């Protein structure tokens, strides 16, 4: 019987307070490392060292590659190459817990895709102290891009549906309590925590006053541009309600402004999805998805870099149309920027679920077990599944890591004869066929696939 309950990934989606590190994290890391035998390193683009991609210590750096390690045929790209090479950029969002498990995750995506996917470590300024955020980004050397998002939309609760800003976040980031934001000061805060791609504030655009909202956001972006120093890069950071992509009038205004303001070569655009969307599921609103597609096409046509934070597989789909970056995280909030809904008492146990790469969907464990029991089932070779399946009890963290690894890894399914649009189209059509052959029901049905197929 399909379980229609949400899970605790939903309940923590708006948590802005990093939990203390779990003592189990290091044990889990050791356990995962114990199942990996190959040790491979990739050179950092600036030549200052190597990142261990697999095996013990994966995700950390060594100054000199020790003897006996395999040297990867690709380097860890630098920021500019990651943003402009035309290869996908996978943004991994700072998790509120289990963050020590992320460096290996980032390295695993680079390794599994043979460097075809670059990664970004993305923190949010209101989610931690400078020390915590800097420490985490420093611990992710496989990340070519480092982002510290100001989350300016937290000043706009009448536009986007968000929870009340906590006193702790206000203490860390007093600008969240002010009416206006000093663009230069905000840029400087991002510098302080070590970001190498700076963002404008990300205030939410009011669809009731569309042109005024656009003018304000772009003007603020200009102020941020003016605050840049040599060799710094800025992405125009916009936060939108879904209507900006699904409503033709709003979409035209937004896209026309994006086209006209050529000074912004990188767009970091976050769109809020409805609260009823299940954790780790994909939106199926065709108008919204068509808006995303047109946005990605515009970016491609105009040679701009489009980054779509908190979009998970829906963001991955947009790579087919011209997006460069898509974001996900260990928990549900990393995969979707959803409207905050009141309710949820925190007592609902998390459902045991597993991301099936061949379905491009997360299914309940019973479904996964049935599929895995068949002789033709292709077992996952990610770094986390050996440990996950060796345990007598289901480990949600390992299951989440497996999914996050795959969401990133799917960006690298290209080949010289199969560019990204064709590769994604083929992948979706294969998934449609797989789903048609499985006795799926309820939440296990990948309802997004027919809509995606239509768009492709």
């Amino acid at each position: 019987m399909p379980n229609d309950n949400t899970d605790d990934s939903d309940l923590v989606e708006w948590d802005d307070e990093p939990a203390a590190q779990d003592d189990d994290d290091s044990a889990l890391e050791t356990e995962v490392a114990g199942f990996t035998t190959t040790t491979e390193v990739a050179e950092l683009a600036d030549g200052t060292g190597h990142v261990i991609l697999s095996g013990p210590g994966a995700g950390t750096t060594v100054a000199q590659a020790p003897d006996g390690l395999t040297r990867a045929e690709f380097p860890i790209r630098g920021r500019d190459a990651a943003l402009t090479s035309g290869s996908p950029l996978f943004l991994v969002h700072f998790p509120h817990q289990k963050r020590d498990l992320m460096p290996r995750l980032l390295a695993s995506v680079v390794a599994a895709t043979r460097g075809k996917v670059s990664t970004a470590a993305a923190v949010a300024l209101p989610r931690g102290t400078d020390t915590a955020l800097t420490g985490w980004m420093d611990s992710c050397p496989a990340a070519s891009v480092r982002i510290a998002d100001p989350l300016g939309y937290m000043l706009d609760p009448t536009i986007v549906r968000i929870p009340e800003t906590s006193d702790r976040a206000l203490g860390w980031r007093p600008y969240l309590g002010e009416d206006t934001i000093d663009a230069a000061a905000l840029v400087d805060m991002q510098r302080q925590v070590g970001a190498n791609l700076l963002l404008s504030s990300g205030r939410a655009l009011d669809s009731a006053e569309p042109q005024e909202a656009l003018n304000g956001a772009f003007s603020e972006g200009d102020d941020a541009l003016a605050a840049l120093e040599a060799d710094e890069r800025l992405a125009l950071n916009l936060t939108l309600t879904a209507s900006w992509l699904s409503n033709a009038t709003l979409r035209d205004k937004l896209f026309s402004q994006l086209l006209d303001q050529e000074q912004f070569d990188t767009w970091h655009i976050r769109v809020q999805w409805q609260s009823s969307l299940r954790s780790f599921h994909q939106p199926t609103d065709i108008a919204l998805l068509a808006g995303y597609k047109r946005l990605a096409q515009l970016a491609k046509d105009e040679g701009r870099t489009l980054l779509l934070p908190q979009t998970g597989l829906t963001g991955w789909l947009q790579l087919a149309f011209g997006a460069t970056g898509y974001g996900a995280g260990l928990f549900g909030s990393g995969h979707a920027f959803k409207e905050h809904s009141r309710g949820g008492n925190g007592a609902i146990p998390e459902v045991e679920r597993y991301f099936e790469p061949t379905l491009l969907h997360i299914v309940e464990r019973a479904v996964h077990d049935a599929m895995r029991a068949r002789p033709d089932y292709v077992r996952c070779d990610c770094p986390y599944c050996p440990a996950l399946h060796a345990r007598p009890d289901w480990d949600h963290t390992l299951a989440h890591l497996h999914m996050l690894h795959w969401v990133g890894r799917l960006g690298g399914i290209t080949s010289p004869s199969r560019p990204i649009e064709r590769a994604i189209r083929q992948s979706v059509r294969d998934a449609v066929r797989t789903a048609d052959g499985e006795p799926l029901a309820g939440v296990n049905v990948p309802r997004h696939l027919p809509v995606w197929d239509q768009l492709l």
Partner: protein
Amino acid sequence: MGRVNAPRFSAEDVAVALSVESVDFLGAGAFGDTWRAGDTAVKIICVDGYPPERVGREVAGLLRVDSDHVVKLLAAESVTLGGQIRPALTFEYIDGGDLEARFNDGVVPTPAQTRDLLLGLLRGLADLHAADGTLHRDIKPPNIALRDGDWAQPVLLDLGLARSTTETTVTMYPGRLGTAPWMAPEQLRAQPARKASDLFGVGVTVRTLASGEHPFYEPGADYTYDEALAQVLAGPKPLPETITGSVRTVLDLLVRPAEFERGSARSNLRRLEQA
């Protein structure tokens, strides 16, 4: 009415004002007359009270542009004419005639010349827009000259000085092309012109030359702005079948009602150059 056919001042008075032996009248716009003086073209603002800051802004814009397809500003001075001090802008003189004259003479470029014209205009626009977002705002056949009469060397003239129009209707006057017929939908709605508005002007201009008729309006017909907008939204007349491939694609994109669908000058150049 956007253009006058006769100069506001005599050639003798203008020559004296410019301290040259003689001048030849080149044309008149809504705000000023343009005279040839040797190998330069001098535009004298004739409308009393023309905002000096507008001249200054446009001069600043022109000085930022370095393009073979945008007329070069040589000097920005003032002259005393008709008892008043008036701004006078001295440009290089483009010997080769403008597109309005060719259209009125019934000259239709070949498909290859159409491609050359389109490429040149988009290059000029790309250079212009790259100069701190400078806009032209009034792209139309009389504001485009062909250097040495070469379709591959179009030059944008009269930048931005005529950013508004006194025309109250959109009319295709025989032999005289005003400003309104070249306006983009957003301009017809009285919204500010943007880069996409310049792209629309290029699209309408090249389509007009290539097909020998305006893509949206009938000769001699008189449209209110709302009627003109409806004409534009209904779509252009088809291009001649001889216009094919990427040129056809770009010319169709450039006259799309939605600004973003027209693309930038650079992306349209890529479409043409990669084909």
